């Protein structure tokens, strides 16, 4: 469930005018920016951008980029973009900064159609395919894994095959146990099988070996390929738990990893952030809002709290 609180009736023109007023003069009225944009669904934000463009012949996105700064600006920039365009931007930034997790998240958590939409948005924005950029910036087994994950267009139905679940759970188990992973087979299974089939395989794994595959794959190996592999397994197996872990690590980290916090909150606020919040509380005994408030500051913090559904 989504966390943001937005009215069903709104006027894009009024919002555009209020934002314009917030930009006037010295400095910016950040409170207004937060209180408007933080309370609008994506289709509403799109209409506000259109209204702003018509009224003032200016791109609202560019204006926000120049008026705001720091982590707050990054968060608002990501928030104001169309969701699929945003994901394309996040993927591009991740490739350039060598952050494999984002690529794995997009290809393993998103549905086949959502992943496709991101790839189209990537074509439009960067005039290249996501696959070719991922391929160009990685090598060896990591490249094989990431390119396969990103290229896949999984069967989206519920049909599963118990015999396959059995044999492929075995292959995965052998690979994890032996540590000298049969990389080709593991990549093949994780990147081509449907989500339903993989869940069936992971369940079979748990039944046969007592522990979840995610737990078993938490090895000490810290090279890029193994890390990405663990992330992929975790994302497929339990995406909400995965996001909780990302947030926990980002908050715990000295100085806080704002990029990760922003990414999770901004991309999930209109999807399942509510469930993630509940799970966060259950696993960490502290509400997510509290943890975020403790480790972030100023307008950035206020914006995140609004997206998290804070009552004003």
């Amino acid at each position: 469930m989504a966390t943001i609180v937005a009215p069903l009736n709104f006027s894009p023109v009024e919002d555009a005018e209020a934002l314009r007023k917030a930009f006037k003069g010295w400095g910016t009225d950040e409170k207004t920016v937060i209180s408007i944009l933080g309370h609008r669904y994506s289709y509403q934000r799109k209409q506000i951008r259109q209204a702003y463009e018509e009224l003032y012949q200016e791109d609202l996105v560019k204006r926000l980029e120049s008026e705001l700064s720091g982590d707050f600006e990054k968060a608002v920039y990501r928030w104001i973009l169309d969701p699929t365009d945003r994901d394309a931007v996040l993927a591009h930034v991740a490739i350039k900064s060598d952050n494999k997790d984002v690529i794995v998240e997009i290809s393993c958590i998103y549905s086949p159609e959502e992943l496709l939409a991101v790839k189209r948005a990537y074509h439009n924005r960067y005039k290249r395919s996501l696959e070719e950029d991922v391929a160009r910036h990685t090598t060896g087994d990591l490249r094989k894994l990431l390119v396969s994950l990103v290229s896949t267009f999984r069967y989206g139905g519920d049909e599963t095959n118990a015999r396959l679940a059995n044999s492929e759970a075995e292959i995965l188990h052998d690979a994890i146990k032996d540590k000298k992973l049969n990389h080709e087979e593991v990549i093949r299974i994780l990147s081509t099988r449907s989500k339903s089939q993989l869940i069936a395989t992971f369940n079979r794994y748990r039944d046969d070996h007592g522990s979840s595959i995610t737990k078993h794959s938490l090895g000490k190996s810290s090279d890029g390929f193994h890390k990405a592999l663990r992330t992929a397994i975790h994302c497929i197996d339990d995406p909400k738990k995965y996001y909780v872990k990302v947030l926990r690590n980002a908050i715990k980290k000295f100085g806080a990893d704002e990029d990760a916090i922003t990414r999770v909150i901004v991309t999930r606020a209109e999807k399942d952030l509510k469930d993630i919040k509940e799970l966060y509380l259950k696993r960490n005994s502290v509400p997510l809002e509290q943890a975020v408030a403790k480790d972030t500051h100023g307008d950035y913090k206020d914006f995140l709290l609004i997206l998290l559904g804070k009552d004003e």
Partner: protein
Amino acid sequence: MALPQELEALTQAFSGHGVDEKSLISILGKWHPEETKTFRKGTPHFFIDDERQFERWNDERVRLLKHEFMRFKNAVVLWAMHPWERDARLIKEALKKGAKRHEAYGVIVEIACTRSSEELLGARRAYHSLFDHSIEEDVASYIHGNDRKLLVALVSAYRYEGSKLKDDTAKSEAKTLAGAIKNADKKLIVEDDEVIRILSTRSKHHLKSVYKHYKEISGKHLDEDITDLRLKETVQCLCTPHTYFAKLLDATLKIEVDKNTKKAPTRVIVTRADVDMKEIKNEYHKLFGGSLSNKIEEVANGNYKDFLLTLIARGG
């Protein structure tokens, strides 16, 4: 018509691609039993002299004949089909056949590389509906040889379709390919990660530029320097599809070819009739002199022949 000519016409009616329904009706339908017997006696490749004093249909021939009678029906069914379903079914068939005959995998290369990004995506969707699996998972689990990496990568591609490209990147990738080809005896080129990366992720415009630069660097065309069949087909389909199709038609529009080879003309003509048949016809003429329609007249019969001729005439 006199008997010898009729015998000849009837033999013709049964050989080549498809059957000449009209001749079968007008000749065979009118013969007296003695004339039919003369025909059976005079065509030892169709009829065997049985020890119990009768001329027996050759079983293998009857099986092959069944395919010829069905050739028109198959072409019609394929033509009426949605292009996505067509490609999905062709790929599934290729996967099944390819276990015993690796050349069948060439069809997978053909489809993955000559369709547009959206057409290939559509085929992948149709495959989900028809077979409850994705193409990539079936290709990955059916194919075990050297080709697997390349084929999985090709069927998974969702290439950028625009014309923007970086010329120096194309030039350096041409050099990379040249290097891989030189090293082909030490490292299997069809499994070379860089070769697969370039051929399966880059846009077609970019690859045509790579093709051009390769010629400048090494003097020969990229596909000429590659010996691995699947890789060769990949380059031809991506960079010079009209040449690929023209050559394929020439090789398969022959009378004495096996039943698998005979499926190619139907597939090529049905799948390209509304896409680039005009260019393929031009290329055919350039390479082989005569016209494609004359060639079809030579080797095909009856309704099947008329259907093919009608299809290739669409769009001029």
